[in-house]
């Protein structure tokens, strides 16, 4: 025996140890693989020996080889042998090897259970420690199940070293064996208060990991963590806890308020940047969860943080944090625009990409051009196509976001797109192309300009197509050709463009682009013919054009692409035929143009789905007899044109019908369906937030509203986008100047803005910047049926607004108040009304109903010129510009009034108290315990220039009568050296209309309602109403919250419902400027008042 041991040690002396192995490998750089394979053979020999020391040495070397990428799983059993050695040295080697190469499918693991259990209960704490460390790496569900109890016992071990390891490994056990969580959790929670900081830290780690998966369940631990946060000095623990709080605050806002103070303390006291950063991060999360009211706070923190951003890592993290703030407080981030733009110059790609991400959320109408200009510079400078492509997509994303919301000048955007085409080797040609198409189709005013640009592009096509093989940019030619063809009436020299489109070089383009070229050449041909026919001198030109096509088209007829070939041969024959006619001096232009007649309208992709199939309609059955032969030919030809050019034909067919009956309606739907199915230019709209099913009523009645705006500036040639930046500035200056003239009329404008676009950016409001072009946009809130267009919510109106309209809109004006403050409001209302035009007037749309409440705006007039302010405080103080009164559907007796407060003076305003003198019928809801005359404290203070919203709930018993409530607002104005107590009076006006909620109604339900006989009638006649019927309907819909159930000619039925569930039905007829309204309602008093209000509306227009 002794001899054997001696022999073993002698053997060992000749064996290589780890150091020898490493040295050997380093000495055999040339034939490393070969050397290692001999070493592995040696190791295999060593593993066969009985001596555990030799085996351990071999396993140690294997661990090293494993790191170099060699599979050592064949030695798994030997590893287990070494693990079970009684000596700590070897045990440690064994466990290390196991932790590096064992995993769940290693079969020898199941042999280890007992060995590990033995080690866990070893009297030597390091044996236990090593076993725990190893186990943490290779624990399997079986091991977790079998050892969970042993480990749980260890959590209360006397030695903190064991305790902390046992606590930490529990997380792994939970992952593999979730059933253990419940019994172990109380003990784990106990460990949060362990006297040893290491154990505490381990417990925090485990619970933070658990909470990250499911934060809700760990809210109850918040007080415990809060205590730890204020007592612990271990930065790691603090970071973990603070991160955890960051995840918990969105779930429990009350937590946030408590956290602010200790976090602020930590921010000021800690010297560790890592802890500081996490504190700031969580403060951001807290502020976000507390939402409005504190944008300044987060801004100040942000500033202090970005000031630290001198080191590069912090810069990155600062940008990361900003993106969090951006989501809720774009304003505070936007003020750091310059800093972020600087980051684009950073040489670090991590930082550049982060900055790009931020820019997307930061653009506004005001800075879009500037930002894009900077980005364009970067595009030029950028090396590496990946980053450049990233920039390109970002530019397009930024510009096109939310339906081109921020673009004020589309000429500029087209120029940007054209400039982007000069990028070499980009993969995103199709992206640019689709943007060009989208803009040209939807922005009607831009078409002439776009066509001119596209013609230039086509003319210079050779610049783009340097090498078509790997160049995606030639995709833009697809768009260019289509735009030039489709809107060829805007071309100044169609001949030149036609020539450019038929150059032999075109044949090298990809097939689908050639096909578009050929088809659009035909369109151009039609345009040329129309331009030149009839004038004798020009007929030569027309014939030359035909000849040009006949000469050039055969090239395409030979194309290997089917589509190109087919279209080319078709058109070639057509042109030949036309030529024959031309030679006989027959005028053909009219007929050729008819091939491509019709206009394109954008349609939301989901519009079709919303057209319900009427009952009893079988879509597969002929509705009329199949059309006769000649007609079908005609149809066939047209529909072919449509498939290619996406024509909208419904408007042509419309006038044919004078009377509409169900059958015809159904037929039209059928036709429309077919058309839309063929229409490739269904414009995408974002997913609808709410779908209200409606009865489909004649789409044909939907007026397609055209908004014609003049294109302000014509820039000849190929303009650089930079020019536009300048032009745009000038335009804005002009606008601003115009506005100043009207300033006296718009003193309260600011408050209005705050109401409309809270949280919006820039010291100069977005509202001041009026877009130069309109986009025809089909937004998400489409009416269920039909094709219609409307434009962005930020448009401007040229509609003249009369004072009387204003008076109507603000029936509850203070006697002393001039309409000046309502100028803006009036405009806004007008906008809203206009929007309703599009849908309400035809009974199709009903988008204002959301979540069952309807918004109505009753201005709450508080004059900024109220005498006391003027006399006491020299600066004008504006308080309550707007309030909303909303019926609460959940509770038929409640009305929610939202009031926007804005501080327009230079002093701080605090302690605001809102009070209303209750009437018998309407009461302000006060908290329990408050007296009936107590005011409500407005839960915020207002620094200068800040606005905020507060909501007040009123309970209303009787909705039959309109009512007015008087109220006062008291507040303290605090200046540097003094503070004064002030008061403002106002009136709240609840009209009967404000109790109505726009509710859709199906026509069958409607007729049942009328038949039921529960409703009492009443009627009204309006004389001298001089406006189109659909405007009239829109007016009723908008001002009085009705929806159109059905409309036939000059007669329409309308419906609405009160918050208390009264049905109200109207039958509106018009003839010779006289409108008669027959109304029915189950509450005659309410009906009478609503009719009076309707009468008032029309008497004032």
């Amino acid at each position: 025996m002794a001899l054997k041991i001696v022999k073993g040690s002698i053997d060992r002396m000749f064996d290589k140890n780890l150091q020898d192995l490493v040295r050997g490998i380093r000495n055999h750089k040339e034939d490393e693989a070969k050397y290692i394979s001999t070493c592995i053979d040696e190791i295999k020999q060593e593993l066969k020996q009985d001596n555990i020391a030799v085996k351990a040495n071999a396993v140690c070397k294997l661990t090293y080889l494993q790191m170099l990428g060699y599979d050592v799983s064949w030695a798994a059993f030997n590893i287990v042998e070494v693990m079970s050695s009684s000596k700590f040295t070897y045990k440690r080697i064994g466990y290390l090897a196991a932790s590096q190469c064992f995993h769940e499918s290693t079969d020898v693991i199941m042999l280890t259970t007992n060995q590990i259990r033995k080690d866990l209960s070893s009297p030597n704490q390091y044996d236990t420690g090593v076993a725990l460390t190893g186990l943490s790496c290779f624990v399997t569900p079986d091991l977790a199940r079998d050892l969970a109890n042993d480990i749980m016992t260890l959590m209360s071990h006397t030695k903190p070293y064991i305790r902390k390891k046992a606590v930490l490994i529990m997380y792994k056990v939970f992952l593999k064996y979730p059933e253990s969580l419940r019994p172990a959790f109380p003990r784990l929670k106990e460990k949060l208060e362990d006297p040893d900081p290491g154990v505490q830290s381990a417990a925090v780690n485990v619970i933070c990991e658990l909470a990250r998966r499911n934060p809700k369940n760990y809210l109850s631990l918040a007080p415990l963590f809060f205590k730890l946060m204020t007592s612990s000095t271990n930065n790691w623990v603090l970071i973990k806890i603070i991160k955890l709080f960051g995840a918990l605050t969105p779930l429990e806002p009350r937590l946030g308020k408590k956290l602010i103070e200790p976090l602020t303390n930590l921010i000021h006291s800690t010297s560790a940047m890592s802890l500081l950063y996490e504190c700031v991060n969580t403060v951001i999360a807290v502020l976000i969860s507390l939402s409005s009211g504190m944008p300044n706070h987060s801004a100040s923190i942000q500033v202090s943080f970005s000031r630290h951003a001198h080191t590069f890592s912090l810069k990155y993290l600062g940008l990361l944090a900003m993106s969090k703030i951006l989501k809720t407080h774009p304003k505070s981030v936007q003020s750091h625009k310059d800093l972020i733009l600087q980051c684009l110059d950073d040489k670090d790609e991590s930082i550049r990409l982060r900055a790009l991400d931020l820019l997307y959320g930061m653009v506004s109408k005001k800075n879009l051009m500037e930002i894009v200009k900077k980005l364009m510079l970067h595009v030029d400078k950028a090396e590496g196509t990946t980053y450049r492509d990233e920039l390109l997509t970002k530019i397009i994303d930024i510009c096109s976001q939310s339906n081109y919301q921020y673009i004020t000048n589309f000429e500029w955007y087209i120029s940007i797109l054209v400039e982007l085409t000069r990028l070499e080797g980009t993969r995103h040609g199709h992206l640019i192309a689709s943007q060009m198409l989208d803009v040209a189709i939807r922005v009607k005013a831009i078409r002439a300009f776009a066509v001119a640009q596209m013609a230039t592009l086509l003319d210079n096509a050779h610049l783009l197509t340097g090498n078509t093989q790997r160049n995606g940019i030639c995709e833009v030619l697809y768009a260019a050709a289509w735009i030039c063809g489709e809107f060829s009436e805007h071309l100044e020299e169609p001949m030149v463009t036609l020539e450019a489109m038929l150059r032999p070089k075109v044949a090298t383009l990809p097939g689908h682009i050639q096909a578009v070229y050929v088809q659009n050449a035909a369109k151009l041909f039609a345009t040329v013919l129309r331009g030149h026919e009839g004038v004798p001198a020009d007929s030569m030109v027309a014939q030359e054009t035909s000849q040009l096509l006949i000469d050039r088209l055969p090239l395409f007829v030979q194309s290997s692409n089917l589509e190109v070939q087919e279209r080319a041969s078709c058109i070639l024959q057509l042109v030949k035929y036309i030529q024959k006619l031309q030679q006989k001096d027959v005028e053909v232009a009219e007929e050729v143009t008819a091939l491509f007649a019709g206009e394109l309208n954008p349609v939301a992709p989901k519009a079709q789905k919303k057209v319900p199939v009427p009952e009893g309609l079988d879509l597969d059955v002929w509705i009329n007899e199949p059309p006769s032969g000649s007609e079908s030919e005609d149809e066939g030809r047209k529909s072919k044109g449509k498939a290619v050019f996406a024509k909208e034909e419904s408007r042509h067919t419309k006038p044919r019908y004078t009377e509409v009956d169900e059958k015809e309606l159904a037929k039209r739907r059928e036709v429309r369906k077919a058309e839309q199915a063929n229409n490739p230019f269904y414009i995408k709209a974002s997913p609808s937030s709410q779908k209200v099913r409606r009865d489909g009523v004649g789409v044909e009645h939907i007026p397609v509203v055209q908004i014609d705006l003049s294109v302000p500036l014509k820039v000849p040639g190929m303009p650089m986008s930079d020019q536009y930046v300048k032009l745009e500035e000038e335009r804005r200056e002009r606008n601003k100047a115009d506005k100043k003239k009207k300033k006296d009329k718009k003193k309260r404008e600011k408050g209005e803005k705050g109401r409309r676009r809270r949280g919006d950016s820039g010291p100069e409001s977005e509202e001041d910047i009026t877009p130069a072009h309109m986009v025809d946009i089909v937004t998400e809130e489409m009416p269920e049926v039909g094709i219609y267009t409307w434009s962005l919510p930020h448009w401007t109106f040229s509609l003249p607004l009369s004072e009387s309209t204003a008076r109507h809109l603000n029936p509850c004006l203070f006697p002393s108040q001039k309409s000046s403050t309502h100028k803006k409001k009036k405009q806004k209302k007008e906008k809203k009304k206009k929007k309703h035009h599009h849908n309400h007037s035809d009974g199709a749309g009903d988008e204002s109903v959301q979540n069952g409440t309807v918004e109505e705006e009753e201005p709450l007039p508080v004059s900024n010129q109220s005498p006391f302010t003027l006399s006491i405080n020299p600066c004008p103080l504006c308080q309550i510009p707007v309030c909303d009164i909303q019926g609460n559907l959940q509770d038929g007796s409640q009305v929610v009034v939202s009031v926007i407060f804005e501080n327009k003076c230079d002093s701080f305003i605090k302690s605001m108290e809102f009070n209303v003198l209750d009437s018998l019928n309407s009461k302000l809801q006060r908290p329990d315990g408050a007296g009936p005359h107590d005011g409500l404290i407005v839960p915020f203070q207002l620094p200068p220039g800040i606005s905020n919203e507060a909501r007040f709930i009123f309970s209303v018993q009787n909705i039959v009568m309109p009512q007015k409530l008087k109220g006062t607002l008291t507040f303290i104005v605090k200046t540097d050296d003094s503070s004064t107590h002030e008061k403002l009076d106002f009136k709240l006006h609840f009209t009967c209309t404000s109790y109505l909620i726009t509710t859709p109604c199906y026509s069958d339900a409607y007729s049942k309602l009328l038949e039921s006989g529960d409703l009492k009638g009443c009627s009204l006649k309006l004389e001298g109403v001089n406006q189109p019927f659909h405007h009239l309907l829109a007016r009723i819909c908008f001002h009085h919250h009705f929806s159109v159930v059905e409309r036939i000619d000059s007669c329409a039925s309308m419906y609405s419902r009160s918050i208390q569930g009264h049905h109200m039905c109207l039958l509106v007829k018009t003839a010779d400027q006289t409108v008669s309204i027959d109304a029915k309602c189950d509450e005659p008093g309410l009906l009478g008042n609503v009719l009076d209000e309707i009468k008032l509306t029309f008497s004032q227009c």
Partner: protein
Amino acid sequence: MIKAILIFNNHGKPRLSKFYEHYSEDTEQQIIRETFHLVSKRDENVCNFLEGGMLIGGSENKLIYRHYATLYFVFCVDSSESELGILDLIQVFVETLDKCFENVCELDLIFHVDKVHNILAEMVMGGMVLETNMNEIITQVDAQNKMEKSEVRL
């Protein structure tokens, strides 16, 4: 959670690899190579964070690294870890190595990778941070080494 800890030199030679999730040996080598590729082409004066270590766990994970002389220390972590916290941890790790090896250099790591593993095991266990206090780590490492020596003497 820490997903992996890698140490490699300026040429991409691995000096220590510790994966807290199982990968095959080939994948591990590929991860090391790609990580080296990503990290090595970055300037000295840029931030210590890299997104898009696609191999380990995907986009949620970040690479946090420090470069000391000839060695890169790279931690691959998920979003539950504080970026700056991990940077501090790397610093603690390196300082601990420095204490244990007395002026640590790359050669120490090359020849004593097992010892580096033992030190690391006192700091990070199964992907979770066990101890950040350097003195505590050194105490435990020393105690274990002492035990090892006493066993050898036997």
